[in-house]
């Protein structure tokens, strides 16, 4: 009988895991990123990027903050939808779509300024 209990237990655990996802933390990270950009705090915004994204962003001789400032990403706006799957999240704002990854020190922005492309990955102004 034990094996009969394993599969329903697995299904229940998975369903519960799906219900217990924290969507607030990535949403806050996305809002804070756009709030920093809107306030001209490009250094702070750079600090919220995933390490790979922050490393790829600047051209030679540029800082991350300068590169981010040049991109002039539009306003983020209010959060309209959040999807979290494993260590990755997508946060849709009224003015932008961001992809985030959960690191040991919290959620960081992997990609921002993203536009959908049919059947293909989003094209993003900032990405890793």
């Amino acid at each position: 009988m034990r094996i009969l209990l394993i599969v329903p237990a697995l299904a229940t655990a998975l369903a519960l895991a799906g219900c217990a996802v924290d969507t607030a933390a990535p949403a806050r990270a996305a809002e804070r990123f756009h709030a920093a950009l809107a306030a001209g705090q490009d250094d702070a915004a750079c600090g919220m990027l995933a390490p790979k994204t922050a490393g790829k962003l600047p051209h030679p001789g540029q800082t991350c903050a300068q590169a981010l400032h040049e991109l002039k990403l539009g306003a983020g706006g209010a959060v309209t939808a959040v999807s979290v799957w494993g260590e990755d999240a997508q946060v849709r704002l009224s003015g932008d779509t961001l992809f985030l990854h959960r690191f040991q020190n919290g959620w960081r922005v992997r990609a921002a300024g993203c536009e959908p492309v049919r059947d293909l990955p989003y094209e993003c102004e900032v990405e890793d």
Partner: protein
Amino acid sequence: MKWIKENSLSLAFLVMFLLALAGQAISGTLYFNDQQRVLGEPTVSVWQYVASSEFAVNVAENWQSEYLQFFLYIMFTIWLVQKGSTESKALDDAGAESDAQQQIGPHAKATSPAWARTGGLRLWLFSNSLGLVMGVIFALSWLAQSVAGQAAYNSERLGDLRDPVSWGAYVTSPEFWNRSLQNWQSELLAVLSMVVLSIYLRQRGSPESKPVGAPHAATGVES
């Protein structure tokens, strides 16, 4: 010692199952961490990996196919026969068979299980309990595969800067069907091999084989 001997077949497979599952967890963790290092991301412990959707989908997709295999086998062999195969019953016995053959109701014996002596729903449930349980475990494992698979698939899609998909979209996606069918085809081939090879080949002493000297055409004969 007597108890161990009398249950040695179940015990051997239980131990092998647990060792293989533990091996899958350890090797899966090592493989996952190898990929994590390439991506510059933190590695995980075995327990973290075992709790991941990646591990769950890999376990569930194999479980569902095994239980589907046994469910189909149990049900198909009620009506379908194979001349010469130990996996088939005698050619004239195709079907659910008579109450007397099945030792149920008034034909039950003193040693028959209690529910075999009853009638109505209880007798129907007990008469079909093996197929029902195998079928239910298959359905639940497949459901678990779909839930865990959607989580793993969406995590991968987000990593690729793509939209996640709904459960409905996932269970109609090529990814879900590729995972399912690649397991089903191997299980079905294994059953076909067992049915056909048991006509012509022998394994002395195994109840899965007919006696070495039995004719190839003998059907429903086990040693």
